[in-house]
């Protein structure tokens, strides 16, 4: 490992941050094009650096592809002036990340991410956003607030995390698929059909959740239940039913005095 | 006319449903069984170009179960002839007056026959504009205009669909064996369009 690598990565982060800052929507003259170029350059260089130093592994191409997709998508989430597109880019990020998780052999986590984020939370966002108007004409939508501080904070945090993982090998564990395939075509000479030798990480994760982390899980469940009850208590505010003072004119017909025929 | 006495208010909008009704499923099963049975009953479709609905000329015309009966259909108009083969219309403009779609256009002229004062020099019906309400038929004091059972009325141009007097008389010549709808005669004006009426020879110069 090159000792200067972390600093190179930090520098790339800075370049990316500058790109994002420039690409953020703003009133006045748009600087999206130089920002995008800067951001893409940072991503490209980052991939190049990682490709140079990472260990070769199966599916590395996919890994780079999805990483780039996730990065660019994340950039667009914050820089796109239309809220609905932001949501869609967010979905793209989620899918890319879950693909990365699949490559890492964490299928359960990948699908959970999709089901929970893309399938539920972001649909809710889209649901809300649909009620807003289509064109991005509202000043609040087309101008970002405190772009510099936001970018600074975001990329500082990211650099901190990257600094922690910077020394970890970027190799993927073999996925359960690979294991099965190896079992099928390798030296295995069973005459019967292949055993499902590997339980996959779903079972492992289930086991971990139900043994090691059972208290955490249950606590979370209780918290969610409390939140649910609280939400219902807030939502279920009884609207008093008005009684019509005039029995001949029930409330449903106030303002409609015409005879039915 | 609907009077207040005819209106019945079912004062039971929020009648409690029975348990099975509220549980939906038995009701749904019932509905599904109905549609399933329907799938195996006889089709009522008429294969149109090969089969046609024809007017039912005998029996009870008001029978609602006579499914293939065109007797209540109001189709293309015809301009009746009197027993002498002349156009029966007297150009009184009653149909034009009654027409809600303003699709009838008549030019009246002094008739060439001594027993009549007026006759239509021109008589055009815009069949595309017509709504086939039959008001012209009802308005006519001499039963000269009638709506036949002919329903396959087609044309390639708009002009083609404006039926002039000659065309309307041709329709009569083709359909004169049938008296549409047997309206009660208002005037007792004999001679046009009766079921026993012999088809008159078209006499061209008298149009």
């Amino acid at each position: 490992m090159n000792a200067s690598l972390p600093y190179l990565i930090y520098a790339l982060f800075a370049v990316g941050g500058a790109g994002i800052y420039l690409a953020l929507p703003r009133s006045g003259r748009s600087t999206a094009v130089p920002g995008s170029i800067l951001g893409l350059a940072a991503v490209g260089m980052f991939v190049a650096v990682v490709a140079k130093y990472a260990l070769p592994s199966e599916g590395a191409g996919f890994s780079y592809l999805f990483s780039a997709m996730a990065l660019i998508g994340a950039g667009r989430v914050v820089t796109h002036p239309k809220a609905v597109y932001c949501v869609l880019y967010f979905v793209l990020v989620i899918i890319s990340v879950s693909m990365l998780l699949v490559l890492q052999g964490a299928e359960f986590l990948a699908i959970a991410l999709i089901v929970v984020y893309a399938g539920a939370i972001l649909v809710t966002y889209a649901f809300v956003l649909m009620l807003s108007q289509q064109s991005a004409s509202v000043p609040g939508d087309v101008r970002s607030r405190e772009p510099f501080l936001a970018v600074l904070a975001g990329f500082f945090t990211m650099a901190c995390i990257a600094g922690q993982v910077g020394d970890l090998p970027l190799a993927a564990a073999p996925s359960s698929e690979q294991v099965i395939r190896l079992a099928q075509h390798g030296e295995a000479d069973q005459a019967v059909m292949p055993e499902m030798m590997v339980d996959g990480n779903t079972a492992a994760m289930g086991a971990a959740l139900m043994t090691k982390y059972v208290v955490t899980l249950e606590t979370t469940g209780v918290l969610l239940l409390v939140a649910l009850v609280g939400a219902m208590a807030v939502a279920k505010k009884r609207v008093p039913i008005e009684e019509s003072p005039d029995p001949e004119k029930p409330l449903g017909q106030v303002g409609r005095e015409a005879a039915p025929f | 006319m609907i009077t207040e006495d005819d209106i019945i208010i079912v004062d039971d909008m929020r009648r409690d449903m029975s348990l099975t009704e509220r549980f939906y499923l038995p009701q749904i099963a019932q509905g599904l069984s109905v549609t399933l049975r329907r799938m195996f009953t006889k089709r009522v479709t008429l294969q149109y170009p090969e089969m046609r609905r024809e007017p039912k000329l005998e029996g009870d015309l008001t029978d609602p179960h006579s499914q293939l009966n065109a007797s209540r259909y109001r189709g293309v108009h015809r301009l009746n002839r009197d027993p002498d083969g002349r156009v029966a219309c007297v150009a009184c403009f009653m149909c034009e007056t009654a027409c809600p779609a303003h699709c009838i256009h008549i030019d009246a002229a002094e008739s060439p026959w001594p027993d009549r004062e007026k006759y239509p020099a021109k008589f055009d019906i815009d069949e595309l504009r017509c709504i086939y309400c039959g008001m012209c038929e009802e308005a006519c004091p001499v039963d000269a205009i009638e709506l036949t059972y002919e329903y396959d009325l087609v044309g390639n141009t708009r002009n083609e669909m404006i039926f002039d007097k000659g065309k309307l008389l041709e329709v009569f010549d083709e359909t004169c064996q049938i008296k549409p709808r047997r309206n009660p005669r208002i005037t007792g004006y004999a001679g046009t369009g009766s079921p026993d009426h012999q088809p008159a020879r078209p006499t061209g110069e008298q149009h």
Partner: protein
Amino acid sequence: MPKITIDEQEIEFAAGIPVLQAALDAGLDIPHYCYHPGLTVVASCRLCLMEMKMPHPKSGELGWAPKLFPSCQTPARDGMVVRFNSETVVTGRERCMEYFLLNHPLDCPVCDQAGECSLQDYSYKFGKPESRMVDPKLVMPKKDIGPQTLLYSDRCVMCTRCVRFTKEVSGTSELCITNRGTNSEIDVFPGKPLDNPIQGNVVDLCPVGALLDKDFLFKQRVWFLQSAPSICPGCSAGCAIRVDANDDIVYRLKPRFNPGVNDWWMCDEGRFGWKYALSDERITTPRLRRGSSTKTPKWEDVSEILQYRFSQHVDEHGSGGMVVVLSPMMSCEEAWLLLSFMLKVGPNVTAVIGPILSVGEDQAFPAGSTGDETKFIIRSEKAPNRRGLEMIIDQAGCETLSFDEFVESVGDGEVSAAWIVGGYPEKTWVPKALEKAVGKLELLVAQDLFETKLTAAAAVTLPACAFTERAGCFVNHAGLIQPFESAVAPPNGCHRDGQYLYELAGYQGLYTPDRVRELMAATMSQFADVREAAPAPVHLH
């Protein structure tokens, strides 16, 4: 005002009129055929019978007289008590209606009177639905009694209005009654057709479809017609008329009640002399000429073009040689708008009144009558609005010439620019001298109904409208200002001359005579409150 009690209702009436007229004036619907306020009373139809209170011959006590009296023949007196709604009167009326319908053919569908026929109306209102007659109906002949009129005798109810009209109003007595009783018929004398100049009124007078106008025969059913109040432009009498049109096509003219001017009548010349308005030869679009090439400008550009041409002309030649020839066929409003435009462009413009055709002498009816005996007059001056133009030119204070002087000065080359308005029914109104001299004009704007030598030579040709398409007011020979409305739209592509003159004079929006009269009233107070001269006629037929 004397008062009379009709059906327990006290009514004021003008002295000297019959009870029927008093009832009609009060808005009561009393059926009648033979009575007409313009004719003598014969009391022959017996429909207007009434009951009357009279002193008892012995006791002197006031009570209902035992018999019925014709209300048309009974003069109304102060304090009189009559009734039309008693059972006796109603039954009597029903019996009369039954008699009228004994021989009347049931040919309403083919009868041109249907829709405005009082026999039809009264049958619905007062008659019985069924006839008890068992014998076949008498069939009377159809007769061609004159160049314009047909008589269908079997529809006649023998009210004799037509006979009385020819005797009393036209004074020509062509019509008479022949035969007796149920066989009596209206007829003309052999070889003496009904052809007097006001004979068309007998068709209006006929309460049923017996007398028919050949011109209108079978043309339209009357319920399709829409009427607009108008003024006849045929002569300077200014008869009030009604223009009946359907789908922007005029079908007939009818007189309106206009007391003191034409009363209930109009002449045949006016009645049938409007056909030029339907002519296909009319000019419908504006036309520009530059050298030998012509061009049709858009209507929006017309006023700009005219303004440009005239102001250019004034710049070059001054406004001294400018003349505007106002036609007596124009309404006052149009003439005023045109004159104010010309005055604006060239303050020294000369205004000329166009040629006024005069045919013979004034024709009075009955012929040779004078004073109160005269029932109707056809004026010799065949233009409706000479007086109005004179008023407008006087007020404007501009120089004026007679039309002959104008033609002369054109010939002498003294006139450099002219706007000449025509609008006469005949194309031959342009004098030969003017036709010859027209080439000497630098700028000629001609506004006319038909193509003439003038329009052919004009730099700008504008279409004019017929009176049925115009709106405005005419001033008749006696100085009476009478407004009229447009009955139909101008022919396709044509604009109302009122509208384009309004725009030309610098106003915006829709031309309405009322608005222009308001403007005129600033200087001419007589135009301040111009109203319909005649009240709505009480006597409907």
